[in-house]
């Protein structure tokens, strides 16, 4: 990364403010009934927060491609773990010649 590109303070406070706002938002939304969408919304908000922290607080926005790849790799592998494990759970029916 280019160490000397020190981010201005307003970026930090901006991110901080957005994070707080999103926290409030997600709590508020949790009490509104959107049916099955509630889960999706909560996860989307959490992901946005994570992206904000990773890009600005953790300086990935200014980092080299290599660092970005490593930052992504953990999440990518996590998706492998989730995806393939769930591929079992979501298809676990007893196979039987029902009429």
């Amino acid at each position, binding site marked *: 990364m280019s160490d000397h590109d020190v981010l201005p303070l307003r970026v930090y406070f901006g991110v901080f403010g957005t994070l707080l706002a999103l926290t409030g938002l997600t709590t508020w939304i949790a009490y509104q009934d959107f049916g099955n969408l509630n889960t999706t919304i909560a996860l989307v908000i959490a992901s946005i927060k994570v992206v904000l922290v990773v890009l600005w607080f953790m300086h990935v926005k200014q980092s080299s491609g290599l660092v970005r790849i490593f930052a992504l790799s953990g999440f990518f592998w996590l998706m492998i773990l989730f995806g393939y494990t769930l591929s079992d759970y979501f298809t676990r*029916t*007893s*196979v*039987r*010649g*029902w*009429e």
Partner: protein
Amino acid sequence: MFEDFSFFPEAASTVAGRVDAIYLFLVVVTIFFVGLISAALLIFSVRYRRGRGHAPEQVHGSIALEILWSAIPLLIVLFVFGWSAKVFFDVRTVPTEGMEVFVTGKQWMWKLQHPTGHREINSLHVPKGQAVILTMTSEDVIHDFYVPAFRVKQDVVPGMYSQLWFEATKTGTYHLFCAEYCGTKHSQMIGEIVVLEPAAYEAWLAGNPAGRNPVEAGKVLFENLRCATCHAAGSGQRGPDLAGRFGEQVRMRDGQTVIFDENYARQSILEPKSHIVAGFEELMPTYEGQVSEDEILQLIAYIKSLSTGDEEPK
């Protein structure tokens, strides 16, 4: 020690031959490739050994060769995959008709119950030429029901039912092993499968006292545990009518659908709250701790019989 010695296991079920065919095919593939590689190693080693006075030739590689020796193994493994997936699918697809046997594994024995109510421990008599369907669970840890001569094996997992079926093609006595490590006496959790001619099987049944058959026993339990107060056909509207439901889809209150199978029935009895059927209240109490694994199997046998129409046992 040489009496029963052989290199190849006996094949005594309808699937055994199909499994052996894949196996033998793979043996040939293995011999071919191991032969190929060893021959190449040997020939090169002799031909190009140092001291024969030639300079090594610096070859970088060859795209054509790389493609060739990726593609050939790839085709072979894809072929093997398709073949064995097909056999696997058939081994795992339980036929609709067959003799239903209940199996409970526990440290360290097998308990088996015939549809006629005959009970056995560590041995199972079955007729030749008929599909036998095992519905299995465990009272403690994971076990595994393994009959080498039939080439079938299935883990027996506590908390759920697994199924296994086979159709024996040869009379005789075969090993039954527990193939999943289950503690101290894992290696003593063995038994035998005795395959009899159908007539001999009938004779065996007749010669042994039968307990109450599972459907009957289940019916009695169904009364005694007061299931009928809510579930009796046409009774109140408290609980859903169970007749004719087995194998159907059930809609849950939260919109999910579940297939009414053994695992679902078991869960409904032990953890009625985990799935609430659409249109009903959370009324049903849990029977956790009040019924044994065997009894649950009997209840399920009874519930099943309400769907297959043979609730009046012969």
